[in-house]
């Protein structure tokens, strides 16, 4: 499955992103940006981008060569002054929602965001019921 994804990714990738284990890693794969403010921005984004060749890791925590290429890509774009959220949108456009660990509200994901509201409502209801009733019985000493 992993290999399949990798092959798939190779087809989808544009030439500058072409990943190959035999090639040396790209410039910014294992190097930080010199400006700590920009690096912090890049790091924040990388931590929320899924590595497509490993299981459940972000590209900030991965040794896979593809993750290295994506880190390079993100750092270069941040250096060019792009906004992290714009880069995220660009990545999602290419690879789909799956690449981003930060789900956006969409027809596919609305239950994820409705659920916390529902849970909060249930919690409030449970607590209210419990305390309203015990408030009355507070007279029972």
């Amino acid at each position, binding site marked *: *499955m992993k290999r399949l994804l990798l092959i798939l990714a190779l087809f989808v990738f544009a030439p500058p992103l072409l990943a190959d284990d035999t090639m*040396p*890693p790209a410039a910014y794969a*294992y*190097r*930080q940006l010199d400006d700590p403010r920009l690096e912090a921005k890049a*790091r924040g984004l990388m*931590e*929320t981008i*899924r590595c497509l060749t490993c*299981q*459940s*890791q*972000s590209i*900030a*925590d*991965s*040794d896979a060569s593809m993750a290295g290429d994506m880190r390079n890509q993100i750092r270069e774009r941040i250096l060019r002054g792009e906004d992290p959220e714009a880069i995220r949108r660009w990545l999602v456009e290419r690879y*789909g*929602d*799956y*690449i*981003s*660990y*930060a*789900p956006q509200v969409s027809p*596919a*994901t609305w*239950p*994820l965001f409705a*659920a*916390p509201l529902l*849970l*909060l409502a*249930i*919690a409030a209801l*449970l*607590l209210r019921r*419990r*305390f309203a*009733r*015990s*408030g009355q*019985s*507070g007279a*029972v*000493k």
Partner: protein
Amino acid sequence: MQDCGSGQVIAEFGLAALWLAAALAVLQLIAGGVALSRRGDALGAVVRPVAIVQGVLALAAFAALVAVFISTDLSVKLVAANSHSAKPLLYKIAGAWGNHEGSMLLWVTIMGLAGGFVAAVERRLPERTMMATLAGQAFVSIGFYVFLLFASNPFTRLAEPAAEGQGLNPLLQDPGLAFHPPTLYVGYVGLSIAFSFAIGALITREVSPAFARAMRPWVLGAWIFLTLGITAGSYWAYYELGWGGWWFWDPVENASLMPWLAATALLHSCGVLAARNALRAWTLMLGVVAFSMSMIGTFLVRSGILTSVHAFAVDPRRGTFILVLLAIYIGGALMLFALRAGSISEGERFAVTSRESGLVFNNVMLSGTLGIVLIGTLYPLLAEAMGMKVSVGPPYFNPFTALFVVPMLLVLMVGPLLRWRLDNFGRVRSGLIIPALILVLSIGIAIVMAPGKMLSIIGLALAPALAFASLLPLRGRRLSRVKLPLWGMVLAHFGVAVSLFGMACDSAFTVEKLVAVRPGEAVRVGPWQVTMKSITPIAGPNWTALEGDLQASYNGTAPSLLRPQSRSFWTPPQQTNESALLTRWNGQLYTVLGDEAADGRWQLRLWWKPFVTMIWLGGVLIALGGLLAMLGHVASDVRRVIARSKIAFRRERQGR
């Protein structure tokens, strides 16, 4: 050939023991069920002995599996697929449960032993409830025996013995991970006992403080092991994966976190039931939910559904099996609960300002957190089944769980100070002035030191106030008179604060340095000066490695040596990075050796992580608090039993 012959039958012996254990579980279920009827007393007498023998047989089967792994019997399919003759002994043994079949056998073994232990020692509850409980335990075991025997037999032979085994995943060849799964399984299975108690109580409608006292040590025990298991797993991921992350909201991690959250809630509501005979139905409900979470966790990890929903759909035998078991047990238990909940009264009442209310708030918030983790973990699978791929990660889990956890931690500062049933907030107000001041002060400091990082600020602000408030229940008491369970509570709550502080510091203050250096070059990371001395090749039992000699000096003090390795395993071929850590009281220096760069330089990854060790120290404190509470409760139970038998003995003598 001849001494081979004696070794050859070990696998068959194990399989036979497993079949016998399964048969005894069926007998235990039937006898326990019949014992509930009026005429079934005679059969009831066999239930306890059968439960004990069933546990022993399961243990024998497991011992047989460990034996074939130790002798690397390559005619057993499982050994050939997961072991290797050149592997160190520790990992040969750990290999027995480092795979699907073996871990399921470990699961039923622990379950059988726990059931046998309950049958042997638990005499406080009405015998009818005990029969129902042991029948329930047998009912759950049967499902897992069937699963083992028909869908994942660990003792299957190969037609032709393999020439050599395929080895164990190198990432798993680590002492921490050798003992991680058994720890978690003890936790999961302890919750199965709580589940069986809940079923027993639902069937016989016997919910009482005595019931809660019988269930509590099991819940506490399970919870201690889950706490330790999660803590150890997190530390393993931290140092083994080589990037300094300690929690990834990975479904496998969530699978252990969910039972823990449910068990934490159950533990607290159990306390209310034992002390005040309140929250009766709620406690039973949590007993069912906690074990359900254990089973969902096992399903997630063991069915292969996480690797890919599609792979799961292609070979769904095992997954479907566990799914059916889940449906039977969870669905059945919830149905039983729905049928009986109406006839179980809520129990004693209490006012809004009372210890009980604080615990109700804790329970509701923990359940909310559990809900978020459950949805965030299962939704991507559901979406994938419907043809959409979404990822849910830290940007979702962190803020939404904080929504429930932060209010809970605020109430945690006050709740333990309140009295049972009815209290007056004015009584405790004076004690809370200092924590409130600490809170305000640390919010200010945190905003200055970690600007813009919302969750870190909340954590940094809450932790010191919570640490202080957690000690307040000891105020005004003579410390030599404080009972163990109270010490346990104080220690566990203090541990929560410690852990929270570690998490917040790690996310707020970590310094990262990714560089390529030549031997002799020095790098600065935070207060450290790290010099790369040399690179040397070394060899281990089943790997070769390049080892970097790093000299690290903290603010100019005498340097210490670190030796991170980049290891190449050959069975199976895989590269791992062995990080080297340097621990100080105020944090850890984390070093990883990467690949060689083009021009003779070497990749280094360095992190300075202030107070990161507090995360796991807090986890250990929480577990230790649980242990103290458990010892205290068990000791007072034993004292009560002894006193009662003394009274009975005296009465008998006087009567004579």
